[in-house]
Structures are given as structure tokens and as C-alpha cells.
């Protein structure tokens, strides 16, 4: 099917249950691809390829995103971050998720989507507050309209539906992009979120990054659906599959879904086929459940390589430009290093500040207990 701008005949789908109406919701046979692994352009009559300028901007963000992933991994090894779930190999999904949104839209990320959150404009150090262990979230969700990164799987999808429903009731021009992984599609909240979104016809685009693994469990043990995108038809919304390592296809497919939602067309489900090149987190040992050969097979499909090849073939990228992009990415990485090399020293008294708007008498007593302990500690130094 094609995600096109405009209202789909939802009621008709429901009433007839006709074969054509159902077919219209089904994803394409193979994932949409606009740039092949070799960097060569591929055509898809349904989805136009983004402009060279848009792709060059996306490539700059890919380079930065890859550098952020590498830097964060290094910071874990140095003990400056407690943990980092890397999106190495999934940077095209990360960059596209941020790029298709307008400022008034919302992004609902998972714990693996730090690069998407940063690409949306959130300060990297604020994003890493969670992973360095200073607080559970480090940014103001309203500043860039990015929800706190969710650790429980699929729960944030319902929050996305709620934000979109409220926006619709208030007449706001807001589209919500809700991210999850392949494992999360097994959760009940995934089902409830898609069903609610469809029933209330709200502007949410559900974006599954199918990276083949839920920690150690491969997709075949997670679902035997024809594809995860096929699940959409059960809810009465269109599903689409896209090559998750092709930033051009991602921008086009996600962009169409977002525009369709913005125009009142309702929710859609997009599944990106990608691969988690590194372990679940630094605490994981991926050699216990997958072969080096399997991982190696994905190296030629790297999202950066193909975007670079394509842009170079168009003459939009040369060595000088590339060096500048690498230097920009290095600036971001250096800021991460510098920021994380300073201990933040969170205030223990903050424990009591935001549990309730007005502190209960019990929390006041407990805060006094801790204050006493801190003062004794201070005095004994």
C-alpha cells in the first residue's frame, strides 16, 4: 500500500470489509528502498526520493549519530556512563524519526533512541543524565516535545496516543511519532495503543525499528506474522515496510505517514528492517546467541556507507565536505566527553522534591532525617 496524504475511508473499511479495502492497508511485499546497499538509486513509484539537500543534511546527522554511539560506548568503558543501549547500525532510523517531525509534533522514544532524541535538538548531556545515573530523565519534555525515554516496553505508545488524542480534541496541529522495537510488539500495550489510535482516529505514527533481536531473542521467536507491519491491518490502519538502513526511504515513508496523519488520515504503522550491530547494552554478551558471521553479513548494508556512496555519486559530497562533517561530529563527541568527565553530584535532598506537588508530612519527616545524616557526614569530614 501507499501512505498518501489525505483521509482514508476508514468507515468504508469497517463497513464492507471488502478485499480491496483490506489490501489497501497491507504493506508492500518487500521493504521500500530508494537507495541500494551499493549506493545506487532505486525507484519506487509510490515514494519519491528526498532531495539531495535533504539527504546531505540527513547524512550529516548520520555521521554525528554514529560518532555519538561510538563515544557513548567509550564512555561506558571509562566508567563515565553506567550503561548505553547503542543504536549502532540503526542510525538511519534515528535520524529519519527526528527529521520528519515539525517543532509542534511529539517524539516518544525508547531507551535505544538517544540519537533520535539528540537529533530532535535535545542537549546530549541532558539525554545522558539517565545513563550516567544522575536522574531518571534529564531534559524538559516540553522544550523539544520529546517524551522521557521509556524503559518499560510499549508503555509509551499509549502515552503517544493520549497526547495525540488531546491534541485532536484541542484542535492542535500535532502529529506524534511513537517508537518501539520488534520485541515490544509482543506486549499488550502495543496492541492496546494501536487499537486505541485507530478507534479514536488520532494522528500517531507507530514506528517499529525491527533490529531482529529483543536482547537475545530473535524475531522468529517473537512473532510469526508475515511482517510486523502486517499487524496494522488488524487494527484498520495502513502498514508499511521500509529498509531501515536506507535513510532516503525512511524519510520518504515516515514523512508520508506523518503528513497523512497531519491531514486527518489517522494513524499508521511503519516497520523498518534494520539490525542491532552491537550487543543489547554493554552489559550484554551477544556472542551467546548470534554468530559473528551473521553480524558481518549486515556490515555491507551499513546506513552511512550507502548514503555516502549515493551522495558522492551525485557529486554532493566530497572529501572536504566529509572532513567538515567528521569535524562537526567530533565537536559533539568532545562536548559529551567534557561534560561527562565532570561529576554532576546530584543533591540527595532532591529525592523528595517532585514526588508530589506539595510534600506530604511523611516526606517532610523523611527529608529531615536525610538532612540530619548529610549534616553529620559533612561535620565528620
Amino acid at each position, binding site marked *: 500500500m501507499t501512505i498518501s496524504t489525505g483521509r482514508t475511508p476508514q468507515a468504508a473499511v469497517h463497513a464492507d470489509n471488502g478485499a480491496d479495502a483490506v489490501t489497501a492497508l497491507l504493506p508492500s511485499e518487500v521493504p521500500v528502498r530508494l537507495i541500494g546497499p551499493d549506493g545506487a538509486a532505486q525507484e519506487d513509484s509510490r515514494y519519491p526520493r528526498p532531495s539531495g539537500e535533504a539527504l546531505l543534511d540527513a547524512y550529516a546527522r548520520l555521521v554525528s549519530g554514529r560518532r555519538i554511539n561510538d563515544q557513548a560506548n567509550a564512555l561506558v568503558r571509562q566508567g563515565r556512563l553506567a550503561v548505553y543501549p547503542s543504536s549502532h547500525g540503526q542510525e538511519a532510523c534515528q535520524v529519519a524519526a527526528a527529521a520528519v517531525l515539525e517543532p509542534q509534533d511529539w517524539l516518544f522514544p525508547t531507551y535505544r533512541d538517544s540519537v533520535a532524541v539528540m537529533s530532535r535538538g535535545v542537549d546530549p548531556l541532558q539525554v545522558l543524565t539517565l545513563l550516567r545515573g544522575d536522574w*531518571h530523565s534529564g531534559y524538559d519534555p516540553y522544550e523539544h516535545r520529546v517524551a522521557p525515554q521509556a524503559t518499560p516496553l510499549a508503555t509509551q505508545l499509549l*502515552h503517544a496516543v*493520549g497526547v495525540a488524542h488531546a491534541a485532536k480534541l484541542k484542535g492542535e496541529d500535532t502529529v506524534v511519532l511513537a517508537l518501539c522495537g520488534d520485541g515490544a510488539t509482543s506486549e499488550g500495550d502495543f496492541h492496546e495503543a494501536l487499537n486505541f489510535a485507530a478507534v479514536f482516529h488520532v494522528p500517531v505514527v507507530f514506528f517499529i525499528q525491527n533490529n531482529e533481536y529483543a536482547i537475545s531473542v530473535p524475531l522468529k521467536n517473537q512473532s510469526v506474522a508475515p511482517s510486523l507491519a502486517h499487524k496494522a491491518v488488524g487494527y484498520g490502519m495502513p502498514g508499511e515496510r521500509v529498509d531501515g538502513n536506507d535513510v532516503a526511504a525512511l524519510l520518504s515513508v515516515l514523512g508520508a505517514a506523518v503528513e497523512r496523519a497531519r491531514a486527518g488520515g489517522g494513524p499508521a504503522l511503519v516497520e523498518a528492517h534494520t539490525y542491532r550491530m552491537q550487543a543489547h547494552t554493554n552489559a550484554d554478551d551477544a556472542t551467546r546467541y548470534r554468530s559473528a558471521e551473521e553480524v558481518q553479513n549486515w556490515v555491507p548494508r551499513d546506513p552511512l556507507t550507502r548514503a555516502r556512496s549515493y551522495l558522492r555519486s551525485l557529486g554532493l559530497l566530497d572529501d572536504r565536505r566529509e572532513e567538515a562533517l567528521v569535524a562537526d561530529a567530533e565537536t559533539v563527541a568532545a562536548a559529551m566527553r567534557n561534560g561527562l568527565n565532570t561529576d554532576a553530584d546530584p543533591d540527595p535532598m532532591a529525592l523528595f522534591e517532585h*514526588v508530589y*506537588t506539595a510534600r506530604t508530612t511523611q516526606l517532610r519527616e523523611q527529608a529531615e532525617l536525610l538532612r540530619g545524616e548529610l549534616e553529620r557526614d559533612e561535620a565528620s569530614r
Partner: protein
Amino acid sequence: MASTSTDIRVQTQEMPESGPETLTFAKALNAALADEMAADPTVVVFGEDVGPLGGVFRITDGLTARFGADRCFDTPLAESGIMGMAVGMAMNGLRPVVEMQFDAFAYPAFEQVVSHVAKMSNRTRGKVKLPLVIRIPYAGGIGGVEHHCDSSEAYYAHTPGLTVVAPATVADAYTLLRDAVRLNDPVVFLEPKKLYWSKETVDLPGLRRAADEALRTGGRVSGGVGTAAVARAGTDATLVAYGPSVSTALAAAAAAEAEGRSLEVIDLRSIVPYDDATVDASVRRTGRAVVIAEAPGFASVASEIAARISERCFHSLAAPVLRVTGFDVPYPAPKLEHWFLPGVDRILDAVDQLQWEEPAPLGSAPAGTGFSGEWR
């Protein structure tokens, strides 16, 4: 639900009649919801069967007709979905009031409640407030079948970030629900099912004026969330109760009076925040306390209250603090619930155990509250 975008409009409030009137607990809740929706266009009500039907207990009766299907609507039958959507709607400027159809049917929403509703403010250092109300018809005494009578307050009270309210009177049902909607923190609002049809003569226009005034001034209504009430004054011992157990405690106090004992009854109204001051002042004065609740006693709210009284009022106590609670068994079938629920006799038996003359010898704990020895 209409699929077109619709402005949420302020509805004209019906002019209240003046003077006291006889009102059911259910109607008081209904009036509170209607008044909040009339006063604040961001208040939305949703859940299962709350639309045209008006809820299985009719608490949302007439709200869809009066305020439209954008303001009061039915959802698909999925409690986690209801709760998660409420989180998002609250994030985006609305004040959702959701109904969980029955206490035990709220459990599918538990992850959303514990992991997000309760934690969002703390997680975001106060940037994201979730001003939402989770209404739960709760507790037993109505002859309900399994899964319709749970006293689930401990699960919520144990979770930091949640405010937990359980009204026991018609007037409090109105005032506490309006106050709960006004709070900027999430509230679990426990409605004792057995009280839905109870009637009292209340000055609803007066209560409405007080709540409207608080809303207008941004202040708190008197008798709002967080303050316990002395439901009956007494001098000899304190009965601490909340929600469905308050009427039982009052009946016990009336019976005790006939026997020459003056029992004070504290109606907590809010489990969280817990009003230590009112409870402690009473117990320090009477020197004796019995805590009453329907929920199984082990690791319960009643246990927390008993522990707090013991810690804070130890030197005023003439006897150990006792608990009269449901047994530590699953809620029984209708024909057996009478034996499970704390009743007047069991409360009076506990009061009798409060060492009125000589200190009781060791090992003579009241029947039913001690250890049977089977595990020794």
C-alpha cells in the same frame, strides 16, 4: 466519538438550587464530575461504558449528553489502554478522569499506574505533572462475585507518587472528588461500592459554592484531600477507619455507647497523604486504638496505621494497637462475605481486648488475630 476536531467549550453551569437535599453517594459523585466539567473545559471523562450508559454504577450518568462525546466517552475494553492514554492526555494539557469499572479490573492498568502515573513527576523533576483521577468502584459488602469486591488500596498506597482517597460520606464524595480533579498530582479515588446507594441530607449548593470558590481562588477547599475527619467524638478509645469501614466503625461506636464506652471514630478520607496529626491527637487523648479495614490485614494500610500509631503515640497508649481487618484470604463468595468483613461484633470484641483493667497476660492476643501454631 466524532472524528472531527472539536473545540472544548465551557458549558454553562446549571444554577444550583438552594438548601439541604437528600442525595445518594452516587449522585454526589455524579454532581462533582458534572460541576468540574462545567467549571473547567480541560476535564475529560472516559472509560468502559461511561458514555451513553452512564457507567455500570451510573456515576457518569448524563455527562455525554450534557458535555458531548468529546468530553465523556467510551473506550475500547482495555484498562492499560485507558490508563496509558490518560497519561498522554494529561501530558498534553487535559485533566482526565478515568473509570476502572471494578477494583479487580483495574489490575491490567497496574503497570501504567505504578511505572508512569506515579513516577512521571519525579522522573521529569516536576516538568511533567499528571493531573488525572483514577476512579475505582471498590471494596465489598454488595454480594458481588469474584473480582468485584477487592480492597486494593494497599497496592496504590504503597506506591510513592500516588494520592489515594476513599470517601465515606455523601458530602465527602462530592468535595473530595472535586478536590481530586483539581490536584496537579494523580489521584486514585476509591469509591466504596456499598455506599453508592446510601443517602444523606447534604447542603449540595453550599458544598458547590465552597468548591467553586476554591477553584476560583486557586486555594484548597476545606475538608479536601489530605485531611482526616473526626466522624464521632469520644473519649475512651479511637477507631480509625476509611471508606467502607467508617459506617461500620460508627455503628460499633453507637453500640459501645449503649455499653457505656465512648469511642471516637476517625474517618481518614485520604489514605495518602495520611493525616498523622488528627489520628495521633485522638489516640494520645483516648490512649487506645483499633484500626479497621476490609482489606486482608497482612502488609496492609491498616498495618501501616497501627505501626505509625505505635511508633508515635507509644507513651500515651494503655494497650497495643489492634487491627480488625479482612482475613488473609481471597475475597469470599457472596454467601461467606459476612464472615470475612469486619463487623460491629468483631470491632467491639477488639475494643474489649484493649486492657481496660489489668494488663492482659502474655500470649492472650484476641481470637482471630493471633498465630494458630500450625507452623511451629
